């Protein structure tokens, strides 16, 4: 009588074990490499670096010095500006592209490969392309100078290295639009077109179909893709470093400047910047996610 139950339990236990075996590698990497580094970073930002002969742990002076300085808030505003504007532009373009791709049009199979090209090209190459094409020493400015539109390349209107960040935004959008498209396109393929057709038959116009039928359906894709690209944009270093407008820099560049200074004790100040970026990014991403969860519950999705 008890035998089947025991085997059931044993099987259950085995499955449990197997699940932990599957979880272990990632858990180990996360807690040792990531968790360890995170804790060390926090401790260093609080004044713990005996290997540099500095140990004033716990000491909030690095954060006080950082947050008490007006330039930190300027840098934060700049970081958020680049991250948010590029995310929004990439999102709008990605949705439009995904909606176009589920329709039929000539050359679609070729286009489906073309739009994915930036995904395979690294960011640095995109940055190099921006420098080569858009910079004051770039192709467009040199050609304009060569044909006599402007006196010399430095008169070309400055696109890169300004605080408007056109270059940075261009690189992010160029690289991230295909990513958003890919995610949303996959969601769209999954839900099919039946609900849209049903709405159309029931007399909804295009606007109503998009906002009341399509948008709620692709919302999970929108949220997951924007989470990923926003998290990248807020912490990315190379594009604002190469294409940015100098002081005030974005926060990752500020951190790099501290780390790169010949005075190695400034690394603790740099750690305070890194920890600040992590805190700010997590607060924003967590609130975004919480807000979305609440919306999902409200419309009855779980």
């Amino acid at each position, binding site marked *: 009588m008890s035998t089947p139950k025991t085997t059931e339990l044993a099987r259950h236990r085995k499955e449990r074990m197997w699940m932990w075996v599957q979880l272990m590698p990632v858990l180990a990497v996360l*807690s040792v490499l990531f968790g360890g580094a995170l*804790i060390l970073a926090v401790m260093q930002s609080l004044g713990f670096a005996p*290997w540099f002969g500095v140990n004033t742990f716990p000491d909030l002076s690095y954060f006080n010095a950082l947050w008490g300085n007006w*330039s930190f808030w300027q840098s934060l505003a700049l970081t958020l500006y680049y991250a948010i504007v590029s995310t929004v532009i990439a999102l709008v373009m990605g949705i439009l592209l995904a909606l176009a791709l589920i329709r039929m049009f000539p050359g679609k199979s070729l286009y489906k490969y073309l739009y994915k090209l930036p995904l395979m090209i690294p960011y640095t190459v995109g940055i190099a392309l921006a420098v080569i094409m858009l910079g004051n*020493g770039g192709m467009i400015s040199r050609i304009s100078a060569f044909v006599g539109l402007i006196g010399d390349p*430095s008169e070309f209107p400055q696109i890169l290295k300004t605080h408007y960040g056109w270059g940075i935004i261009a690189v992010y959008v160029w690289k991230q639009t295909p990513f958003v498209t890919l995610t949303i396109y996959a969601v769209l393929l999954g839900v099919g077109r039946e609900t849209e057709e049903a709405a159309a038959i029931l007399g909804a116009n295009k606007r109503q179909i998009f906002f009341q039928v399509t948008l709620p359906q692709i919302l999970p894709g929108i949220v997951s893709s924007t989470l990923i690209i926003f998290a990248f944009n807020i912490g990315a270093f190379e594009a604002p470093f190469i294409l940015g407008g*100098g002081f005030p820099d974005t926060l990752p560049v500020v951190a790099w400047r501290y780390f790169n200074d010949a005075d190695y004790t400034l690394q603790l100040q740099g750690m305070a910047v890194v920890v600040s970026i992590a805190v700010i990014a997590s607060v924003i991403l967590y609130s975004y996610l919480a807000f979305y969860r609440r919306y999902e519950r409200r419309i009855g999705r779980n």
Partner: protein
Amino acid sequence: MKKLLMGLSVTACLMTNTAIAEDADAAAFRDGFLAGNVTWEDVQARAKTEGTVNLYYWGGSDPINIWMDQIVAPDLAKLGVTLNPVRITGTKDAIDLVLAEMGSGKGLGEGSVDAIWLNGENFATLKRQNALFGAFADKVPNSGNIEWNADDPRALLNLRDFGVETGNAEMPWSGEQYVCAVNTNRLDRANAPSTFAELQSYLEANPGKFTYVKPPHYIGNTFVQAAVYAHNPDGTGAEPFQQSISEVGAEELARLITPGLEYLEALEPHLLGAQSGNARYAEDNGALDGLFLNGEIDIACKFGLYAVATGLSNGTYPEGAEAIVFPEGNMIKNKNYLAIPANAPNPAASLVMTNYMSSVEAQVTKLKFTGMPPGVDPWKLSEADVAALTEASPGLIGVTQADLDANTAPDTNATLVDVIEATWLEYIERDSSDGIDVIVARAVENLAQ
């Protein structure tokens, strides 16, 4: 909780490992060599058993990399040593590695850096952290090519590195001078500025046609130093800047640098890009060359005695580029060196390598391949050797050696460089409303921590 425990155990490991282990055999070799009890034959024999030398150097210059691979590596192979050139993007990376390894208890014979190409603040850091091999540079055979006699004023560049006493713990490898070049296709040679006041009037007439590398990059720091020397309120130029910060004192330093920094502040609205809102400083050497080549700026200042000749021959300088004497009397000259860290894994091979690098033969090929001026002192060499060096030199364009020698100034003491750099960042980049004396006092206090 688990994460916290792990973090604590990591920290505990880091803290307990402060005692430094040393390879006993290597330590005995070091002590014997520095005491003069080891013959050069023994050093060479040991170098062959060690087999490899890991040289860390800034790898951003193709001519240097090619010279290392095509000349240095085969020559060292003949001596039984394999060169492992580790090309880094910033010298500081190697310093960090040495300090991190020493921090984790790796001593002589156990680290991973055998030699570093460096000078200035990076050497000062190693010295301050007690991370140098010892006074080797005057004990290798080719040290006869270098002036060590402190009574000879010309020995200053070998004995002091940015005002910090080298203690013979680094081998002079190259000499450099801060030279500005003008693009004569855009700027008439007769109008080329030779003082800071002339530079400002040139920029008032031609806004935006100049910028310098942004401090804390050393090329930018050096421009700021030259401006500070030229505006020294006592008119004594570089002289007071040879002492350390504890000798000068914050108040006196603030008084000395105020006119120079005020000049740079007044210059900022005339720099590249300032007309459209934000003055743009070049991020590094490469960025500066790009601006100059592209005609965005007419005057470019950097370290490079032969930079114009090499730049013209490899196309990184615009046609018509010529060196000028600027600023008169304050063209900063220094040397750069090869240092052996305290935890070098292959100390004997490293000695053989530094000895080779200070040979006339290596200096001649280096000059020919890379245009890096010799680090050996010509008056210590035979006539034939001097002739070989002269022949290998890419040559000066626009200035003569006599011009350069007549306008030489020494570098600033490394402890002052940190303060001046911090003051520039605060006063000019961040437009601080505090007075220079307040900023300097704060910087001195921060750095003393």
